[in-house]
């Protein structure tokens, strides 16, 4: 296979920079593996490693600092057959830390080449996540206070199935890269090198020193036995193939004659856990069964199972404009939390409006007709209060009728849940 080097754009690295050796080693690897230019995408990060894509004739994507793995993930998931190689420096590794960890956990078949030269070369030699604490960098004393990251240990802990460490100055570089690219899964190759423009101007770092340090470090030998598992895209395809097609949305036909004309507003004021929102939905569906339009707007705290839960339902015989409350016709006051949250709503209730109020709820003064209900006495649990009050409304032909409500229950629930909902309705209207 021919070289994939871009002849019209020769590498422009500083004299002696390890990056240039990596460019040629990567080219040798791709040629040896017989990969054609259009079967390879090089996704490059920012900094000197971000120049890599321009030196090859392959597909290329160069984006923002630390984000190369994000583009590579999208590319590979869309086109799993493509060989995707990410080049990133120790800078990108630091700023893109969350993406690195997630890529390790995910195990998508990408190759990450970390061009690790222990500093931010392009911006003037500032310290990076891998700068030794005793090195002289352009960040003054700051790197002395921090511990450098061991890339291989990090990615192994995060679940990468392959992590290798090598010197960019060794003869076997192309073979090291080939092993990483050939690995089926997320493979990280931590390539140590010298930044002649910045780092080695103030710090002594020879090929022998790099080799010696690498040899003395644990890990970084390639495949990590305990992290071996199926590759992500293959796993995704298998999981996807096993999915049943989604259920189409429930469609409600108008089977009943509507009981009301114009616009009517119902507010359910309760507490989290009282199935307020489900009841609001049932009310809307019951009205839709009579060909009416409906909207439902809810208010609750972001905590689950605590605090107020409020549902505002509007039914109308024409398209509904404003989705907030103008003049509620009916308030279902089912828990103190809900009523307290909406105290202001009571002041302007017109005399014709109705409040169905649980016996244990204190109401603010209002001009509405108030119907007190002792749910406990009727054997209705707090979680069933909302549905029970809908049953009471329906029994007195307010907004919806009992057949409309029962039809909505049948569309919304099945099996045990439906049976229990029907029982609640029955219990609510028993004398």
């Amino acid at each position, binding site marked *: 296979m021919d070289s994939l080097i871009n002849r019209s*754009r020769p590498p422009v690295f500083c004299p002696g920079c390890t990056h240039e050796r990596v460019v040629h080693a990567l080219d040798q690897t791709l040629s040896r593996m017989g990969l054609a*230019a*259009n079967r390879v*995408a090089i*996704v490059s990060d920012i900094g000197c490693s971000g120049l890599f*894509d*321009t030196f090859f*004739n392959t*597909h*290329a*994507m*160069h*984006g*923002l600092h630390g*984000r190369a*793995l*994000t*583009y*590579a*993930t*999208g*590319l590979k*998931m*869309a*086109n799993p*057959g*493509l060989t995707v190689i990410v080049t990133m420096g120790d800078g990108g590794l630091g700023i893109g830390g*969350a*993406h690195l960890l*997630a890529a390790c956990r995910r195990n998508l078949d990408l190759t990450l080449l970390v061009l690790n030269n222990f500093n931010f070369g392009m911006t003037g030699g500032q310290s990076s996540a891998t700068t030794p604490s005793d090195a002289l960098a352009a960040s003054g004393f700051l790197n002395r206070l921090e511990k450098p990251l061991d890339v291989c240990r990090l990615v192994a802990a995060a679940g990468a199935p392959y992590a290798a460490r090598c010197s960019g100055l060794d003869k076997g570089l192309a073979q090291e890269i080939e092993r990483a690219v050939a690995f089926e899964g997320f493979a990280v190759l931590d390539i140590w090198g010298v930044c002649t423009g910045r780092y080695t101007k103030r710090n002594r770092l020879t090929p022998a020193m790099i080799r010696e340090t690498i040899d003395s470090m644990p890990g970084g030998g390639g495949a990590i036995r305990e992290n071996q598992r199926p590759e992500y895209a293959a796993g*995704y395809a298998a*999981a*996807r193939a096993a*999915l*049943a097609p*989604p259920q189409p*949305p*429930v*469609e*409600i036909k*108008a089977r009943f004659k509507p009981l009301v004309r114009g616009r009517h507003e119902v507010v359910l004021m309760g507490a989290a856990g009282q199935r307020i929102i489900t009841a609001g*939905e049932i009310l*809307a569906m019951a009205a*839709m069964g009579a060909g*009416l*339009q*409906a*909207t*439902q*707007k809810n*208010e*609750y*705290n*972001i905590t689950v199972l605590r605090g107020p839960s409020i549902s505002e339902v509007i039914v109308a015989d024409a398209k*509904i*404009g*404003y*989705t*907030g409350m*103008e003049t509620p016709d009916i308030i279902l006051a089912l828990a103190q939390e809900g009523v307290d949250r909406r105290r202001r709503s009571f002041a302007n209730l017109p005399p014709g409006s109705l409040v169905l109020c649980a016996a244990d709820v204190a109401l603010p003064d209002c001009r509405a007709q108030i119907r007190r209900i002792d749910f406990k006495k009727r054997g209705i649990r707090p979680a069933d209060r909302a549905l029970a009050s809908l049953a009471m409304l329906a029994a007195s032909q307010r907004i919806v009728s009992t057949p409309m409500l029962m039809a909505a229950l049948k569309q919304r629930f099945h099996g045990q849940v439906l049976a229990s909902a029907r029982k609640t309705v029955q219990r609510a209207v028993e004398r």
Partner: protein
Amino acid sequence: MPATFMEGNEAIARGALAAGCRFFAGYPITPATTIFQTMLALLPPAGGVCLQGEDEIASIGFCLGASMAGFKAMTATSGPGISLYSEQISFAIGSEIPVVIVDVQRLGPSTGSATRGADGDIQFLRWGNSGGLPVIVLAPVDVRDCFELTMRAFNLAESYRCPVFIASNKEIGMTRESVSLNALPRPAVIDRKAFSGTDRFLPFAADATRKVPGFLPIGGDIPVRQTSSTHGPDGYITTDPDEIAAVQTRLDQKLKASIRRFSYWAQYGPDTAETLIITYGISGRAAKSALARCHRAGAKSVALLVLKTLWPVPADLICNKSANANRILVVEMNLGQYVREIRRLLPDRQVEFIGQMNGRLIHPETIERAVCHG
């Protein structure tokens, strides 16, 4: 006609599928989460990919990668996520990567209120990128718009190779509404135009009239270069001032010069009205109720313009629709953002502002009072 009871977020997801979306990535955030949940339920069984990113930056990054591989892609978030998207939005603008971005706005600033609505990101969506080049922002009013405008957003992203925002709001996204699926408008689906020349493929070469480069996917037969760096037509870094200027001008003009083709709006009331209410998004519903109240109260010379394309500013539309009005009321769920554009376009007119940022919808009565007694 049978109806379903659906929230705006679900309608956006269904609109995306109808438009040919094959890739979605998102990170959970109230009030946008149900878009992710719906995409997860619908997209993989249909052969597409739905991912949960490790954060918002990754989610949109995945989308940009997938889009460059030729997939129609969408992501969805709220204000805090848009903040994190910023650098990737700039990439999508400058490097002409089609993507649909849904912002289900919530009350800010910052993390603000997760379950309270607002339209506080309207200028942020326009200007929250480095370089300041234009974007397209569409604003739905209801569930029906969520479906239709999402389809249109994909068509625009593909046609113009750019990010297209849907500026939704908690009050639309998480409000359910009866809607007939069969009656939803379904615009014809448009796919991005492939490069078809016989010359060497240059990834950013565009003809002078269309101003949009032909697309080839990364991973296809011909190697494709994509870069966030300042580039010429060949996709390599350039320092040539003329080449740089030509690309920047093209990116600016490809959207601004075509705004008339995608100026979406709705108008209610007489063309000749002396008072014109201008609004967008969820407030369009209150304004419509307010308009009916005004007409009932005898104030007949009032009309309403609901803008559904906010950016680029549909200047001709706004000027034409307000030609007969001597008084303009701009209604927004913020403390005054789009009103700046209206004042800029109509310096000789009395432009009043009605807005609030308290987590509550603007009430029709507030608008009616301002129109009739303001």
